[in-house]
């Protein structure tokens, strides 16, 4: 059984693309709190990645909407909402 990379896995899931990002990150607050590596690690969908310059990129379109990042991020780092009506991940199994 090959699980494949996270990207390959997410490609099997169904998504309805939202008009814009539902996750916003305060880069300065994230840097001050050293939150990048934590977010990178705890997100099951690999949404966050820390670049060479320390900035965190957010591939929000692959978000599985679990809420883990919001629950563990230091205060002020993330603003996270559910995607707009009907948008985002749409499980066919669940």
């Amino acid at each position, binding site marked *: 059984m090959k699980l494949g990379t996270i990207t390959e896995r997410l490609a099997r899931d169904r998504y309805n693309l939202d008009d814009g990002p539902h996750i916003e990150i305060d880069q300065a607050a994230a840097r001050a709190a050293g939150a990048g590596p934590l977010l990178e690690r705890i997100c099951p969908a690999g949404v966050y990645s820390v670049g060479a310059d320390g900035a965190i990129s957010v591939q929000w379109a692959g978000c599985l909407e*679990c809420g883990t990042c919001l629950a563990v991020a230091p205060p002020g780092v993330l603003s996270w909402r559910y995607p707009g*009506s009907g948008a985002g991940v749409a499980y066919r199994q669940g």
Partner: protein
Amino acid sequence: MSETPEVDFDVIVIGAGVAGCVSAHELAKAGRSVLLVERGPEPGAKNLSGGVFYCRVMEQVFPSFADAAPVERVITRNCLSFLNRSSFVNLDYADERLAEPVNAVSVLRARLDAWLAEQCEQAGVMLMAGIKVDRLLVEDGRVMGIGAGEDELRCHVVVAADGVNSFISRDAGFRAKDPPNHLAVGVKSVIGLDRGVLEDRFNLEGDQGAAYAVVGDCTKGVGGGGFMYTNRESVSIGVVLRLDDLARSGHSAAGLHDHFVDHRFIAPFLKGGELLEYGAHLVAEGGQAMVRDLVRPGLVVVGEAAGLALNTGLTVRGMDLAAGSALAAAEAVEAALAAGDCSAASLDRYRRNLAASFVGRDMATYRRAPAFLEGRRMFNDYGPLLADVFHGLYDLDLKPRRHLLKTAREALKAAPVGLTDLMADGWKALRAL
């Protein structure tokens, strides 16, 4: 008190999961006008569970639930597995009594929730899917309805059934953010397998199913565990990881999921399978300490939005508690509507109903479970200890045999847990679980 504000519906239910659908169904059945609003493009699209539904409670809502609903398999075999890197010890329990009457079924939520919402519509509920509720309308501390984008809809009572993240209550200032040790993330794969192969591998006949609860090396010691449940033609497999422990551990959520799925004692079950879906969802693990804010003027909170879920180490339960709380709430809302009084004092009947139901009683019974399961020994040390005891019994290395007690004592001496730990944990387990 006979305030009769202009309303669009008697009741608006936010979220078409198990809790929302059962609430909506019962209130429509009682003759109320009910709107059920769901943010997913169709009911179930946002929902994910491990998938064993202890479904006895559903017979109160749908008399032949296990036959009529799109369930996967009837769980007649439960296996508790202590998994180590190079050994495992299983407690394997199969019983035909679990099928008659049906006690638990495996489910896939995209199918189950769609069916539940369909039953709601047949009972007269108006379903609006693909609409995210943005806010509660609150006037003088009383909930008057909901807002979605530009639109506002008014009602006598709002039922918040919006699940574990419960933004509806949080944004209205009714519920504080939960601490990370009250939450766990479930990372799950659904793996398609040929039906015959699956039944052979899990030793199943017909529509019978197996449920594995796994502790130990599957999470590399992070609080939580693994699960592996059989569906009709697929396996639901994944890990549940307590957020405080996950954050501390240095492990990645996806990495632990993969470690479990690829584990040498797990992989053979899945050989030749095809990944159908990969998903993640939070689950409430705080137990009774997390249950609060059930009632406000014009508002009741049901299901996991109210913190109702239980992890006992052997079972994860949320769906049955969601259904039970929905029944308790629907009865109270109906009584409040009939009395024309939807104040907090009137709706408090829900809290009393809940406390008297199996939901309130089980939450109270298992109130010590979260603290017990936070003790790390359960995850780290007991698996290897058990394996050492059995190794001593089965490894006939030509040394003279000793009695079981001696073998166990030797294993205990070599293990990082002492006899007093073992006794203390045993006592705690008896009291907590």
